């Protein structure tokens, strides 16, 4: 039986950050379904927020102002103490990252450069050209190599084993070995990322199926605020590859087919740099009104920035446009449209990253503290992944030092691994059945059609009905290949089961929340309703199905006000 003190699931920014902050005397290992540097954090582009006040126009920026922007951006659903914690740890974190080797772009005086981003009162987004996620992920991985952290690469965690309401272990599918392996640990941190690929149009990596969130839910851990799904305003037409908010931060325009900078009609002051929920909705509205090109996209125009600025600040975007759209943004505008991008909701944890299940912690996109509330600001997700990754590492270490009682569970964990393998074999031995890849495509279409940018009760209800049919179809699933080594079919089959849960919780949360807040826009309830809905949605699994409760927000220093940008 494989045993460690602490198992971290996920090798992206949150997982690596947790591994680096865990007590070095502990026996720590990281499990990742891909090599850590293939994790989706690598694709983040524009930057990471910290009120360093290095920008000439940001000299009087502060943690408090960063926290205020985050809370206002969240449409007041963020926990204000957690947002303040995030923003106060941002500054020392930036200096640590710099010391570990992150090649941040610089101002002439040698300080870390900062650029304007959406919904921020000051230019406070630190960056390395438009490859910020890549350099952050590589740097944290380098530090993990330096510390000789143990990795189980290309292992997919499939189950959380609970005994006596405490974490007992995990089961993982070792792709190269083709076996299901039981693992024991006294504490686990989930840093498994988002579920973008529950949607058809997503900026996310193909691997972002999000099963970690669904797995926690199945283990009895509640999910929080799952109805809040971020749609990024600017994804490349066709492939939905992210075109960073930094393109607008550097001065890019959004232009409709009539040649008009339409953001004037929606956010006359902030224009293109309004928060993402507002910009994405504005673009979709323009397209729906018939002001889009070919009825499906608008232009992101960078031409006026000039060749030099594009080459220096947005080289990655130019590469993406050249290779994936066959156009050069120096000469031509970029065709863009909104696409699913980020999950504000997730596994219900507090500001120490602890979940209600003893010994189980979560951080990063899979978790919901909540610091992003109903809408995350650009540049805050890399920050959250790193800061709350650290906090999770610290909290889990403190928990282990407190000497938690030994949980017996060898037998259960080993049995869970065996039973999943026999279930897979039984599925394989069927004569025929549903192809899981096709079921996945059906789920994606369903979610894009019924839980997109604009929502209403009839559509969400239809989504739930169709989801029940899909659940039925999944019972007839069939493995066409074999249950052996590198079986992506088995990976998707296991993950899909958890995705069904995620989809249900998103749809249900969205149907019940009869108001509009942040990313959650109900055309049948188009106003924010603070009297009734200033609270978190908490959904817990029971044998009879999902149980919905609500948790009031703790009062903070900032009273909700109208969001005008």
């Amino acid at each position, binding site marked *: 039986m494989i045993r460690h003190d602490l198992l971290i699931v996920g090798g992206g920014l949150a997982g690596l950050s947790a591994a680096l902050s865990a007590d070095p005397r502990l026996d720590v290992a990281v499990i990742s379904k891909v090599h850590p540097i293939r994790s989706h954090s690598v694709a983040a582009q524009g930057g990471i927020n910290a009120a360093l006040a290095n920008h000439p126009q940001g000299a009087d920026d502060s943690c408090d102002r960063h926290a205020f922007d985050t809370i206002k951006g969240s449409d007041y659903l963020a926990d204000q103490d957690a947002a303040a914690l995030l923003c106060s740890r941002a500054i020392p974190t930036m200096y640590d990252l710099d*010391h570990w080797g992150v090649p941040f772009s610089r101002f002439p005086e040698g300080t870390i450069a900062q650029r304007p981003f959406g919904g921020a009162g000051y230019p406070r987004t630190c960056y390395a050209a438009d490859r910020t996620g890549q350099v952050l992920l590589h740097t944290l991985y380098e530090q993990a190599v330096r510390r000789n952290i143990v990795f189980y690469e290309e292992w997919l965690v499939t189950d959380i084993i609970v005994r006596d309401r405490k974490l007992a272990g995990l089961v993982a599918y070792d792709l190269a070995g083709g076996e299901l392996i039981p693992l024991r640990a006294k504490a686990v941190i989930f840093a498994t990322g988002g579920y973008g690929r529950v949607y058809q149009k997503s900026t996310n990596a193909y691997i972002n199926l999000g099963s970690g969130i669904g797995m926690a839910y199945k283990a009895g851990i509640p999910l929080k605020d799952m109805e809040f799904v971020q749609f990024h305003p600017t994804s490349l037409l066709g492939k939905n590859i992210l075109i960073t908010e930094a393109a607008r931060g550097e001065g890019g325009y959004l232009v409709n087919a009539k040649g008009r900078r339409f953001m004037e009609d929606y956010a006359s002051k902030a224009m293109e740099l309004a928060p993402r929920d507002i910009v994405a909705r504005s673009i979709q509205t323009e397209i729906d009104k018939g002001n889009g090109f070919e009825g499906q996209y608008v232009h992101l125009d960078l031409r006026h920035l000039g060749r030099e600025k594009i080459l220096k600040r947005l080289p990655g975007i130019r590469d993406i446009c050249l290779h994936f759209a066959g156009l050069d943004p120096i000469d031509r505008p970029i065709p863009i449209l909104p696409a699913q991008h980020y999950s504000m909701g997730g596994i219900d944890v507090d500001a120490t990253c602890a979940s209600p299940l003893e010994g189980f912690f979560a951080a990063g996109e899979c978790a919901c503290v909540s610091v992003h509330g109903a809408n995350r600001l650009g540049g805050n997700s890399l920050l959250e992944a790193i800061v709350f990754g650290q906090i999770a590492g610290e909290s889990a270490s403190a928990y282990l030092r407190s000497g938690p009682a030994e949980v017996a569970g060898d037998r259960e964990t080993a049995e869970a691994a065996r039973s999943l393998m026999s279930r897979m074999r039984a599925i394989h031995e069927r004569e025929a059945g549903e192809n899981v890849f096709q079921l996945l495509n059906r789920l994606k279409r369903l979610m894009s059609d019924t839980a997109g940018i604009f929502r209403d009760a009839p559509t969400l209800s239809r989504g739930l009905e169709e989801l029940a049919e899909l659940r039925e179809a999944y019972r007839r699933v069939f493995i066409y290949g074999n249950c052996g080594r590198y079986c992506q079919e088995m990976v998707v089959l296991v993950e899909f089961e958890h995705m069904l849960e995620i989809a249900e919780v998103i749809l249900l949360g969205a149907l019940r929340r009869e108001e509009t807040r942040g990313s959650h826009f109900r055309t049948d309830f188009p106003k924010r309703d603070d009297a009734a809905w200033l609270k978190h949605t908490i959904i817990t699994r029971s044998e009879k199905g999902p149980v919905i409760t609500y948790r009031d927000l703790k009062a903070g220093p900032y009273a909700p006000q109208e969001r005008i940008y």
Partner: protein
Amino acid sequence: MTFKILRFEPHRDEHPHFQFYRHEPKPHDSVLEALKDIRDQQDPSLAFRYSCREAVCGSCSLVINGRIALACRTQVSDLGSDEVVVEPLPNLEIQKDLIVDLKPFWEAYRRIEPFLQAPGETPEKGHRVEEKDLERVFQYITCILCACCYSACPVATRDGRYAGPAALAKLYRFSVDPRDGRPFSALERVDGPDGVWGCDTVFRCNDVCPKDVRPADGIEGLRRKIIAGKAKRIFGRKP
């Protein structure tokens, strides 16, 4: 169109073989999208790696119609051929179908100590570094560790001990970082035929790199640094 894809399960097959699939990709489909569609619609047992589909994660390096490339960034229509031949990266052991064992690549990477060694604790207000002093670093940070260069390198092919282009370029990237404080002895570890002097300077690495890193520039830079460092040791100054 015909997709001719190399299949191999070393635990079962004696030799790799090609399997043929008829598939009509959608306009603008990449080779990766075509592979996924073939797997989803025709053969769920087909194994290959993927993640970001936007040329930044480095998972899907393959040989496509004889050229080493990222499958996600190779558009089928650009191949200008009715037949697409897809094979795993050469010079690495096949684990299954298009998936190769990158262990030698990662071992070489680990050997060069691929992390910044900035002396002391984090400065209270951060490092002061001028952007021009980071220019040489910026060339190398676009490396996505996709192993295209390692796989294409004729020296790595014949000598498994050779560090290979990506690892050496990575070492150079750190050695020119103004924040780094590694001793000269760290460079001397690659002062031999399994290090910088192993390079044949045929520049296959530069040719195949999908991110224009030009790893051979890094190897050349390390050679100069090592010579200069030795000269300094002998003569007490740079020659």
